[in-house]
């Protein structure tokens, strides 16, 4: 078991293998994400019952919650890839970490925008310094810091290693930040309307789960697409890329 896992890890460390296998996985992942997302979103928009207090505005939840979850796990993925970069110096991990950053940042952005749009009919204002929105904003800042550092260093390898350090530091800090923001929030505004206060309807829950799974597949597709570009860029001198391009 362990041996085969180790072999798989080494295989995925080779850019050529990664490129080939993700090329074969991609259609399946696209199909899976379409199959989960389209029915989930249509059901969520048109068929799921309206929420008791918020009426139809709650339907934003079907993109807001998946986006929040992906933004968080994207950062964690980046940090894990960072550990692999620093400890085992794996080239593939460098490319994955670099590709995840802008995609995770876009999901954090989606989460913030949808949250603020949802807040307008629910709270009456576009923005509330609610604990979860605030920590998502900070997560977006952390992503921006990582991206800025990556863009500032020219050498690809040292850029990857520097951002690996930063993303690990950020990942260690993230729980502390989240906890402090929650604490700060209870201090300053005792009772705000919770977005998901009422017990969630099973119909809503299954729709939401389907959307979350679908968005995760979409995230995987986006990361793979972007990583494959990175592979072409970094491996352009190798013979297999030249053959692939048809030179």
């Amino acid at each position, binding site marked *: 078991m362990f041996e085969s896992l180790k072999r798989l890890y080494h295989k995925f460390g080779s850019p050529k293998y990664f490129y080939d296998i993700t090329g074969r996985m991609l259609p399946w992942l696209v199909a899976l994400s379409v199959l989960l997302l389209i029915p989930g979103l249509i059901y969520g928009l048109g068929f799921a019952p309206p929420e008791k207090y918020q009426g139809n505005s709650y339907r934003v939840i079907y993109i807001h919650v998946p986006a929040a979850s992906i933004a968080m796990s994207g950062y964690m993925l980046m940090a894990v890839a960072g550990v692999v970069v620093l400890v085992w110096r794996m080239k593939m991990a460098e490319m994955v970490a670099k590709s995840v950053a802008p995609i995770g940042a876009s999901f954090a952005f989606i989460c913030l925008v949808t949250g603020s749009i949802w807040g307008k009919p629910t709270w009456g204002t576009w923005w509330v310094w609610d604990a979860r929105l605030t920590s998502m904003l900070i997560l977006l800042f*952390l992503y921006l810091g990582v991206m800025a550092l990556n863009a*500032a260093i020219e050498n690809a390898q040292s850029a990857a290693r520097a951002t690996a350090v930063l993303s690990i530091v950020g990942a260690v800090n993230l729980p502390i930040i989240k906890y402090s923001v929650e604490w700060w929030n209870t201090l300053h505004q005792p009772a705000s309307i919770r977005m998901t206060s009422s017990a969630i309807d099973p119909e809503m829950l299954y729709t939401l789960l389907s959307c979350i799974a679908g968005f995760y597949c979409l995230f995987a597709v986006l990361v793979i697409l972007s990583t494959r570009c990175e592979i072409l860029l970094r491996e352009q001198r190798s013979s297999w890329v030249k053959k692939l391009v048809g030179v």
Partner: protein
Amino acid sequence: MADPLVSQPVQAEEVPSMWSGMLAVMKRDLLIAFRQRSDMVNPLFFFIMVIALFPLGIGPEPSTLQKIGPGVIWIAALLSTLLSVDSLFRQDFDDGSLELALLSPQPLFVLAFGKVIAHWLVTAIPLILVAPILSIMLFMDGDTVKVTLYSLLLGTPVLSMISAIGAALTVGLRKGGVLVAVIALPLYIPVLIFGTSAVEAASMTLPYAGQLAYLAAFLIMALTFAPFAIGAALRISVTSQ
């Protein structure tokens, strides 16, 4: 007489201990700072000026100033730390002493730790000493001034440690300044939250020991983990030359 053809066992030179290495780095940095005082004084001036700008921008009503006082002092402290940290490794990087530090028998993180402590002593201590005067100018009263002092004493080392990570990551780059801010500012947030709320609690005569305890916990965490991150970041920045 030793036979020159037979290699003699090399007398192992006495390697200075980690502790003495750190102290030597600290001593050297303190000496440099006292020789060129501008690095030491400028962050202090900046701190005072930023705080003096707030009443000018917002208005001199004591009640308003009292309310925003803790936040103003903390944000000014945060910005002046950020401003001063850019010079932390830059000079050593330019003249090559960082490369030597990399080769020295002491681990890099120990030397980096010494540098950060020296930096904190030079830039943050004057700021902490001035803070009570400024907080009186912002109409805070007795206990609040004391708590401002305590919270800054516990919080600024954490800020120095965090911004040192940013400075170490960007030391090889030409435009480091703004980048350090973008990297380090989000990581400052827990310290900012607990620092200001300790001062606020004191101003409302509420118990503030809990917030100070959190700051102390952050300090211990930063002292434990940050040196490793700083060391790793310096190694990457120097070797990627």
